[in-house]
């Protein structure tokens, strides 16, 4: 009993996300000038890469049946410590920047895993605590001084300008930013892990039924260490991408806006908050919707103050849509006989 092709497509959450993106793009293309230009689209993707990478991290944590909300603090810690260390020791290398930031990210991520697996603290509570812990430690022990563009190491700013497939246009040179390449690599790596390795199937399995996963022979603790370590790893990468983009380091960046947008993108992408379900395609489409909203509402004449409001609406609608679709399929299967009133 195979489902036919168009029906299978209609049953997929991703199809609806793609339709929303297309509709929104049509609206934007008609209402504004300059949306459908190569320059704008490349710039949108360059700006959204950081969000995309963090969303992959959040997606993996959710699929495992956990959650990690400390990632903004991890990302800014990696970034700010790397920049300050480079300035203090006179190092000027993008490799050093990534090395330091990723090392801090992984260490913090593993500490999250330690709290969650050793003391059985719910991941939400554990990472809420470490969010404050990591950010507080950064402000207290590293400092609060802003590093402006003049002092940012040149290797960072040069990395930010790197692009492949360069070509000349009337508006000037264009190319695919290195950020998008890194984002693409992160998507590929995450897809490979989740889809093509037993580790990835283990992440889905513990998100479905942790006790069952243990009985099936999965090493649940080890998988959790990987999950939170991977969140830290990706956050560390994002920290450097972020500073290369805005060429300014200040320890209150990222923590101010990233959390809401990442949660919005991943939930919108159809990943179940209860774990075990979600796809990378959905997550990435969710990210695209959020960055389109973030960047283009203003082009439609909607004041930027409304952006938060619209992202809020998007989360509510996305969650309701997911809930309804699950309920309808349960009724079809006959699991839900009558609508019980509560």
């Amino acid at each position, binding site marked *: 009993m195979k489902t036919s092709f168009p029906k299978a497509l209609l049953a997929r959450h991703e199809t609806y996300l793609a339709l929303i993106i297309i509709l929104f793009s049509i609206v934007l293309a008609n209402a504004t000038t300059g949306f459908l230009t190569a320059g704008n689209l490349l710039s949108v993707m360059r700006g959204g890469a950081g969000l995309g990478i963090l969303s992959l991290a959040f997606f993996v944590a959710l699929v495992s049946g956990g959650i990690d909300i400390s990632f903004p603090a991890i990302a800014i810690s990696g970034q700010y410590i790397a920049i300050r260390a480079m300035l203090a020791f006179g190092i000027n290398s993008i490799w050093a920047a990534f090395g330091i930031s990723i090392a801090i990210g992984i260490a913090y991520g593993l500490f999250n895993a330690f709290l969650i697996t050793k003391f059985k603290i719910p991941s939400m509570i554990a990472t809420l605590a470490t969010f404050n812990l990591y950010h507080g430690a950064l402000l207290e022990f590293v400092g609060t001084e802003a590093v402006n563009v003049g002092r940012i190491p040149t290797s960072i700013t040069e990395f930010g300008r790197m692009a492949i497939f360069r070509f000349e246009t009337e508006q000037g040179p264009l190319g695919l930013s290195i950020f998008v390449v890194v984002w693409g690599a992160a998507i590929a790596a995450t897809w490979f892990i989740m889809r093509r390795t*037993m580790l990835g199937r283990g992440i889905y399995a513990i998100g479905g039924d942790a006790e069952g996963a243990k009985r099936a022979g999965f090493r649940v603790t080890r998988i959790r260490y990987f999950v939170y370590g991977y969140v830290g790893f990706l956050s560390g990468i994002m920290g450097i991408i972020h500073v290369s983009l805005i060429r300014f380091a200040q320890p209150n960046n990222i923590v101010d806006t990233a959390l809401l947008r990442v949660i919005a993108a991943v939930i919108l992408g159809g990943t179940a908050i209860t774990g075990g379900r979600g796809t990378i395609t959905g997550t990435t489409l969710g990210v695209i919707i959020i960055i389109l909203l973030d960047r283009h509402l203003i082009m439609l004449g909607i004041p930027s103050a409304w952006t938060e409001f619209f992202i809020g609406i998007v989360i509510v609608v996305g969650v309701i849509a997911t809930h309804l679709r699950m309920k309808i399929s349960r009724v079809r299967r006959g699991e839900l006989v009558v609508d019980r*009133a509560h």
Partner: protein
Amino acid sequence: MVQALLEVRNIRKAYAGVQALDDVSLTVAPGEVHCLVGENGSGKSTLIKTVGGAVQADSGEIIINGTSFGSSISVIQSIRHGIQIIYQDLSLFPNLTVAENISLSQMIEQGEKLTNWKRIREVALRSLAQIEEHIDVDLPLDRCSMAQRQIVAISRALTQGAKLIIMDEPTSAITAEDVRRLFKAVRRLNEQGVAMLFVSHKLNEVFEIADSVTVLRDGKKVGDYQASELNQDKLTFLMSGQNLEYKPFQFDPEKEGAPLLLETRRLRKVNQFHDIDLKIHAGEVVGLTGLVGSGRTELALSLFGLNPPEGGDIVIDGSLVRIKGPEDAKRHGISYLPEDRHGQGLFGHQTIADNVVATVIDSLRGTTGLIDARRRDRIWQEWIDKLKIKTPSGHNLVSSLSGGNQQRVVLAKWLAVEPRVFIIDGPTIGVDVVSKARIHDVIQELARTGMGILVISDEVTEIMQVCSRALVMRKGRIVAEFTDLQSVQESEISQVVAGIDGSEVVA
């Protein structure tokens, strides 16, 4: 004699001073279906966990295919020597595909690092083919029925090289038709030399499939029997240690002059039930039976306000009432005991006492607006005593009780409101014969106090044992009424339920 596949000798296990297993022995031959039966708490679960390595015995010997493991075996050893336990919850992954559910354990066992999707599907298909079952292996498991999930669990056990599959209460969550399908799969396995050990407290199924039966009671073995030498009564006696009396309940409302408590007139809801005329008098126990989907539960829910009807009247004490929610129902003296006691009936993480008084908490408020603790304690103590709930203290968690006792707490909870009409949906689902008999006694006792009771059950036997009158629903209509249950045969009612009595219903 063929060498035993599994031999367990003189196993003892104590938990905190309680002797859970006392000198228990068990032998399972290759290719046989063996049943391990006993009441809740008789030690069945402890015994299978000992064999599976999840629990270490204090003394005794476990021998698999001639290899002795002393008194304790590890989980890995047990699996490597062909023992597979399928627990009641099945330990499957609802979010993964059928193929993954079947094959992943084997991939892990073989130390695979990468996911080979082609092999995952092949292993799954081969395993399903071994028991001649067809399930779309690409389907997510949560789209499968309970029966299909059990087939998946069995197929997974086969990929692990199972020689003995132990299933814990496999038939409690599935319909009779699914049970037959499951048994067919089991038969095919037996032909291939795979043995099955069923753990059950349901009796009729035991006879259908078992070759031999081992009975446990209070941690001790009562004996080993050939299934052919047992019958229902004998097995009940062996399990409970007592002859359970079956007391038919006779009650004629007209002769007794019993007042009519609740009446429905042409009650209906599209696709659920049609033109329901139902009468419940004080002091009678009315049985309502029918297949799943016949509309029986939907009807009961509508009387309790959880599934408002679309037309028709509900009359209580001669006056027309509207029941739009459980609050209305409670005000009119109607209580409802749900079928799914875990989902709807109990707060598992709270104490027995708190559960009992949950329904009456509003009326416990004293003059200060605070809870009157003395009255509260009196109420729960009274119900624990009345329903003989087995617990050292009302302050223990509900989740610490056995299934039968939990069911009694649910009863207590809804009796605490002192209802006049009590609707009981599946009063004894998942409880053993002894608890069942006690619950039946309680129901009849309540009726004698003048309560009107509606019992919904898909077990015709149960309806005949506990009720004074029975109604049969099919396709949303009441198709038959039996007023004298002493003079009908069980098979007569069953035929009406199944719709093979010749009558046709126009839906």
